[in-house]
């Protein structure tokens, strides 16, 4: 039987889908849908988006710089929510890791010689963890990030379609 959604059980798409669905069911179990105040809804939306990003980052593990950075960001944010002190601590370790990776890629701030500094900087802001990459790695990470984002959007669209009827 041909499963149109998951062609390969170990592909990025299926990994992301399973994780995301699990997270969604968890969110649904937590809160009733009847909350209608804007802030509540916003919070729910936020939670879902975070779940989506997190499941995507977890599906990629730490194989990519951007996924590592995203996981750190999410973790530090969740720590900050729970406990301000631990948030600061994790923030510090986050800084340390960023600094370390920036030391490894020491060519981040120099003029690339190809003249794409502004665009490169903008791209660095978009791609998580992009500040510590030189242009070459940045383009590589961007390609993988785009691939993962398209997968994420595809899966989410399909889920939304599925549950809307």
């Amino acid at each position, binding site marked *: 039987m041909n499963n149109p959604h998951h062609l390969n059980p170990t592909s990025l798409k299926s990994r992301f889908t399973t994780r995301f669905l699990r997270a969604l069911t968890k969110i649904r179990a937590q809160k009733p849908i009847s909350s209608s105040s804007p802030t509540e809804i916003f919070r729910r939306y936020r939670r879902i988006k975070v779940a989506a990003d997190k499941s995507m980052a977890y599906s990629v593990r730490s194989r990519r710089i951007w996924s590592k950075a995203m996981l750190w960001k999410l973790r530090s944010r969740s720590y900050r929510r729970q406990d301000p002190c631990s948030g600061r601590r994790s923030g510090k370790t986050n800084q340390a890791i960023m600094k370390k990776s920036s030391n490894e890629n020491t060519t981040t701030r120099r003029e690339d010689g190809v*003249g*794409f500094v502004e665009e490169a900087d903008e791209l660095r802001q978009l791609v998580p963890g992009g500040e510590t990459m030189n242009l070459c790695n940045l*383009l590589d990470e*961007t390609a993988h990030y785009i*691939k993962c*984002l398209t997968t994420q959007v595809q899966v989410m669209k399909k889920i939304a379609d599925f549950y*809307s009827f």
Partner: protein
Amino acid sequence: MQPCSREMQAMNSLLSPTQQIPLQDLQPNGNSGTHQAQIHNPQFDPTSSHDDFLDQMLSTLPSCSWSDLKSPWDPPKSDETPPSNPDNNVGFHYDEILASKLRQHQINGGGGGTTAAMKMMMQQQMMLPGRPIAAAGGGGLTMPLHNDIVDGSSFKSPNQQGGEGSVQALYNGFGAGSLHGTNNQSPNQPQHFHHPQGGNMQTQSFGATAGTVMNQSQASGSTTGGAPAQPKQRVRARRGQATDPHSIAERLRRERIAERMKALQELVPNANKTDKASMLDEIIDYVKFLQLQVKVLSMSRLGGAAAVAPLVADMPSEVGDCVQTTAGGGGSLQRNSNGNQPSANNDSLTVTEHQVAKLMEEDMGSAMQYLQGKGLCLMPISLATAISTATCHSRNPMINKGSSSNHPLLQSNGDGPSSPSMSVLTVQSATMGNGGLDGSAKDAASVSKP
């Protein structure tokens, strides 16, 4: 053809004294791990003059001709069971021998640094994907070229670092050829001696770097015959190219970046831009668009049509510059909630707008509730644009509101253009334009159906 003929000369001049060397090093090929020692201990004597060195070489090697080099390629390849590494070693071994020989010809005692360069090159070569080159031809030609590369590096002996860089950089190109030369088996064997053709292929594939190397080879060809009193510091480069190791490294970097840009071009739709800068802009806009889509989709999953989050102005991270109301929910929502939403016609929309504007003046929360009751939502313009372009849904009118100045400005969104980047830009520019028109209050309502 000139470069090839020069290569031939260089090769003949270089290899006639040293042609037996590779054979000797290739034959006892089982001890690939110790070939380094082989190079250095018996043959590498930095203090000897080149005459003594030559005598050493000739004495230690059995005499054989250049043509016999063909055969040694086979046994090493067949003998070694692990396919890649010993072949790599063969190729490197080969080049390293010649490199060390030439080094001694020209410099006394600069060899240590270059040895390190060799090691680094070896490592780099292992990691490089390599270039598609006629393998044995490439391998055969790599020898003299490598010699010249080493000449180049040894020429720059005062600038050891640069020499290593250049050797590395050139080796990345050429040594990769030899790498593949050793790895590729019999089909390339017959080409081993087709030097002119191999030279052609090499020069064509390597372009500028080959040109530089050939210039160097000519220089070294003339100098390796006797003891060069001084290494030639300035080799005349081809037009437009440079022998500066930094520029070579820069070129490699640029090539890598170009490769990645090509890969990105395939991922991004509407990638028909030839200009790199505009391509980057496209990429940036596409990434923004995708992130936006994720946001929108995560909103749409909040239990269907009527419960879409009205994003109020006090949540700046999600709202962006302006907010926007869309009749009937977002684009994807419209798809999902076909039956739930009454399709608003123009008149009711205008009325709704006025109502909401009035409510917004008083209390944001009530305005939101009003909207919710109608099944409308407030969302950033960029979000709505993303929805409209993502789903290609152009039937519903879009109402824009600018809340930056607390005076709701109603402005038409126009039809969503085909590419997401364009839509974002137009909306943003329109938003900016309207943001400036502060004073006109609710009367400045202009709604148009796309």
